[in-house]
């Protein structure tokens, strides 16, 4: 019985298989080629990332919260322009992306000169920022991820307290507002106090490993 069914299936299916191989497969190959071309075209229309990141870094460097950073020991700066900071912040180190190994992040305070470096790092390097002992400083613009999502990621990475920090160049002062903590179980970020409005083009997320305010 089984042999008979097998023979019958062969007779019925063989023409169909032949038709797929002779008629449809070339169409699939053509379709694949077209998809490839479309994706290449899409890539060609993307803006070059480096000029944008450099422009952002320059703006963020102009609003770097110096009074805060000068109190930190062993800071590490990540950015294409980070070399410029060695003379300004004593005892600091600079890392030029791409970062291949998390051991280089070792320090008390890790400062990203642009959100791009943070987003690239967490996508390309599986890291919990364990070598960062105290604080991550991150400028945010919402170019890559919304600010709330950034806070959620930082909470999930083991930084339970996040402030928003602004720097006023004229008075050379930093002020913080809006304290975010992870909601129990979900770890969704919750602002426990209000964020002050600011005209600053650059605002910083200050993520702490250990809560500083009880």
């Amino acid at each position, binding site marked *: 019985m089984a042999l008979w069914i097998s023979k019958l299936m062969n007779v019925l299916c063989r023409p169909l298989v032949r038709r797929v191989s002779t008629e449809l497969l070339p169409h699939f190959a053509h379709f694949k080629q077209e998809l490839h071309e479309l994706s290449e075209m899409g890539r060609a229309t993307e803006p070059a990332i480096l000029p944008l990141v450099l422009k952002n870094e320059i703006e963020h460097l102009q609003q770097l919260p110096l009074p805060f950073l000068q109190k930190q020991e062993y800071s590490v700066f990540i950015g294409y322009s980070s070399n410029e900071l060695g003379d300004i912040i004593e005892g600091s180190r600079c890392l030029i992306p791409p970062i291949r190994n998390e051991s280089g992040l070792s320090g008390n305070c890790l400062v990203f000169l642009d959100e791009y470096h943070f987003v690239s790092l967490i996508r390309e390097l599986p890291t919990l920022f364990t070598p960062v002992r105290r604080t991550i400083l991150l400028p945010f613009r919402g170019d890559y991820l919304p600010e709330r999502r950034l806070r959620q990621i930082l909470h999930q990475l*083991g930084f*339970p*307290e996040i402030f928003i920090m602004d720097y006023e160049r004229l008075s050379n002062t930093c002020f913080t507002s809006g304290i975010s903590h992870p909601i*129990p179980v979900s770890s969704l970020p*919750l602002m426990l106090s209000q964020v002050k409005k600011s005209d600053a083009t650059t605002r910083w997320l200050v993520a702490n490993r250990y809560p500083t305010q009880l």
Partner: protein
Amino acid sequence: MTASHPVFLLLGFASEYSLGAIANLLRNAGENVFEVDFSISEIPDLGDTEVVLITSQHPARTSSIFRHGNERASAYKRYLSPMECMQRFNVCCSVFIPHDLEQPIITDEIAYLSFFDIYCSPYEFNPGLSLLCTPLYTGWSKHVGIDTGEFTHQGIVARNGVFFVNQLIDLMGHDGAKYLLDKYGVAVSHEVPFKFPNWPGVSNIEREMEQTGALVIPANTPSTQVIIHSAQVFSNTNGSVLAEAAYLGVPAHIIQPHATALPSPTPRGQQRQPFNIQLLLQSIQNHINNSRIT
């Protein structure tokens, strides 16, 4: 352990404090133990004394978020998170012991394990956690000396089983006892005692339940002790007690709202291993010795 004389500081909050039995084991082993259940006690002043910090708290739950929305309740005012305690004390070894057997570590809290030196796992399989700390297969922290001691309605529980109430905070927002009796009256009619988690405010619901004739086991009775003596375990929803029942080989069932009958008893399964205190003490000692060498 006695050569270095660190003190043991055990931390938790209400039903999320699952270290009472371990505290007794440590005392029996000659250690100096401080127990802090933040719902009833303050953190002690230990000065510069070396501390072995053991906690069953949620590692990511800060004191600020814990008090948020509960500012008026005195039970929440004393709360400090494990990280806040680590800053306050001279910690020579930190240990995380979960209070929830169903979900020992919440996914979004995994990164916080890197704050700890040792994780006491109830289960053998702990993939990837050795990247963050030292996982030890110690077994379930409440599975210690559970056959001893007596509790209210013990005889009835052995015949009829017990009904554990889960998701208490939701229940408190749903008219408490009235809601429970309406949805799970089947437990009352079958003389199955109720057991609530030990949480601030639960005594009011217990009192209301008893006034209607329902049987109630006091919330501060260790749940594992109740489970091991039960014919079977019932609950309104998933939670740690069902996982605990499975761990102890006791049949467990979720009861649907407005059910008219309870499932028939099924045979007991196999009990898993009790908490291995020796393994924990040895690992703590090794960690302290290694950190002194380096």
